[in-house]
């Protein structure tokens, strides 16, 4: 969608389809409405809007640079252009197109741009370009004629806009407008545009002079200007369809009132000649990208989340520290109450329990009478076979061994003693370590030595 700010309202050109508009454009002029209302009336939703701004809102200047690098010029033009602007204190936004090393610069006050964007209301995000009318006219002419230079008289309503272009450089641009109640007189007209026409005559030699009469152009004004041109002997061409039919098939029925809008459309495909005052903070965002404001907001939210997360973490750590301290306190208290002094950890507690256990074991072992020599002697007599006659010679009993020496009547008695003693849980083994015989009046007697190993842990318990 393309909108031009005209004297009597807005001229709106809509492409019903994506460019190039093979089906042509819908052209309409509305008055008595704000831009927002115009867009709402047109049913705009997500369509891109290109706006052609009137020359009364911007300043045009030409500057020469010793270099032709677009980026370098972009970096310095903001400072260079100040000298040609009404006030150095004002804050401007400047854009330009480059012809050789000469920049055609257009500047608009930042506040004015802000007000313009404000007037778009909820359609602010739809706005893709703010194009100076000079550039739009130039591009429109560039579309219609082959020459790079021309002298154009754009007649619209009760105004005439004079544009002089040489080699794609806008040498001059002048808007002459008559108020609604102001009478258009020959003298008044001559006073305002004669110097321009004379200059035109001189510079162009009557070549490439074009006149574009918009459909709403005032007849009286048109007649007077044509008369004046005739008087000055200046011949001119009427702007019309020429060689662009292939690009815009419907151009034959194009209303040339919308010449700047046509230029705005043409500018999309001519990036080197594009001028867009929607720059810096007003720069249109590519769809799907976030603005600096949103980026900052996201950053602030991120910081908030980060701070909250950190605070939560610190709080959690503090809480856990308290829990750990409380647990340590309980362990210390338990240690003091139970062990008499604070235990450091489980290992320490285990050591203390083991220490008591060891003491008990020492005491129990020292006072355990199941391995008392008296007990072993009783056990020995208990399991000794009753039918064996023995004459002992020596019995030694300690906690681990018993050594029994004596005499019996036969070897079988020794076996019997051995077999019976083994029955006791107290005796782990009974070994016959020595045997022999001695003579006597009743025959020989058998001597023996038994070595009994005492079981330290009797089977079946005591």
């Amino acid at each position, binding site marked *: 969608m393309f909108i031009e700010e005209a004297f009597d309202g807005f001229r709106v050109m809509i492409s019903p389809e994506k460019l190039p508009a093979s089906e042509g454009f819908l052209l309409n002029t509305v008055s008595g409405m704000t831009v927002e209302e115009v867009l709402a009336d047109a049913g705009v939703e997500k369509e891109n809007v290109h706006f052609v701004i009137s020359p009364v809102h911007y300043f045009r200047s030409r500057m020469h640079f010793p270099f032709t690098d677009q980026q370098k010029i972009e970096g310095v033009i903001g400072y260079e252009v100040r000298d040609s602007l009404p006030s150095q204190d004002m804050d401007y936004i400047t854009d330009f197109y480059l012809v050789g090393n000469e920049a055609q610069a257009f500047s608009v006050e930042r506040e004015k741009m802000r007000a313009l964007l404000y007037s778009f209301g909820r359609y602010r995000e739809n706005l893709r370009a703010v194009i100076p009318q000079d550039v739009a006219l130039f591009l429109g002419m560039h579309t219609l004629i082959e020459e790079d230079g021309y002298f154009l008289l754009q007649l619209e309503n009760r105004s005439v806009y004079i544009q002089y272009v040489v080699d794609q450089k806008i040498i001059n641009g002048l808007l002459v407008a008559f108020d609604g109640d102001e009478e258009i007189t020959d003298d008044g007209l001559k006073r305002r545009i004669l110097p321009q026409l004379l200059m035109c005559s001189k510079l162009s030699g009557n070549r490439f002079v074009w006149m574009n009469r918009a459909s709403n152009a005032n007849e009286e004004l048109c007649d007077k200007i044509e008369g004046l041109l005739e008087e000055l002997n200046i011949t001119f061409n009427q702007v019309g369809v020429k060689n662009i039919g292939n690009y815009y098939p419907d151009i034959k029925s194009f209303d040339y009132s919308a010449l700047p809008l046509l230029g705005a459309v043409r500018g999309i495909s001519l990036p080197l000649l594009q001028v867009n005052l929607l720059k810096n903070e007003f720069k249109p965002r590519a769809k799907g990208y976030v603005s600096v404001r949103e980026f900052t907001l996201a950053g602030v939210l991120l910081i908030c989340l980060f701070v909250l997360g950190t605070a939560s973490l610190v709080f959690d750590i503090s809480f856990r520290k308290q829990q750990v301290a409380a*647990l340590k306190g309980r362990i210390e208290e338990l240690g003091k109450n*139970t062990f008499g002094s604070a235990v450091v950890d489980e290992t320490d507690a285990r050591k203390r*329990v083991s220490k*008591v256990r060891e003491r008990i074991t020492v005491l129990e072992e020292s006072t355990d*009478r199941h391995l008392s*020599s008296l007990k072993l*002697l009783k056990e020995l007599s208990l399991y000794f076979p009753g039918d064996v006659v023995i004459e002992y010679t020596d019995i030694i009993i300690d906690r681990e061994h018993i050594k029994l020496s004596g005499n019996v009547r036969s070897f079988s008695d020794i076996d019997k003693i051995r077999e019976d003693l083994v029955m006791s849980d107290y005796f782990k083994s009974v070994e016959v370590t020595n045997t022999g015989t001695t003579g006597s009046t009743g025959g020989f007697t058998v001597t023996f030595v038994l070595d009994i190993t005492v079981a330290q842990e009797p089977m079946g318990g005591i």
Partner: protein
Amino acid sequence: MEFKGLIKNISSREKTLAAGVVFLLVVFLVYQFVFVPLLATRQGLRYERTELENQLGNIKVLAERYVSENKNYNELVQSLKNKQNVSVLTYLENESQNAGIRDNIEYVRPRGDQKKDDVRLASVEIKIDAIPLQDLLHFLANIEQHRDGLIITYLRLKPFFKDREKIDVFVRITDVTVE
């Protein structure tokens, strides 16, 4: 000066980009040097708390065991301390007197002390001559029964050469006391 000039000349888009990069850098640094250590501290505290909870549970069980064992130990110690006012030699002398075998005792000799922590093991050796076996058993049973912590740890019996119904005997006694 050059840096200032550079800053002055860069476009607002580049400034935004630089600000974004600086912001992300700051976020990264804060994350790396503040957040990560805090996370590590929290993880450490979680681990420490779990460990302490386990320790507390185990120490409670150990404490109950300690109380029970300590009670047993104290009872044992108490029973052994009751006899401390009479020395083992005096005790043996009295018991032999009561058993009527004092005259059979050839000698009573202390054989030294042994210490395990605060437990003292005092050994005494007695030689008894020509004693009937029954009297000996009666005497030995008495000395063990009437005094806690006294054990007969060595016994050597030999027939008395004049009368084989009697025996000569070496007895070693260990008396346990707690200091």
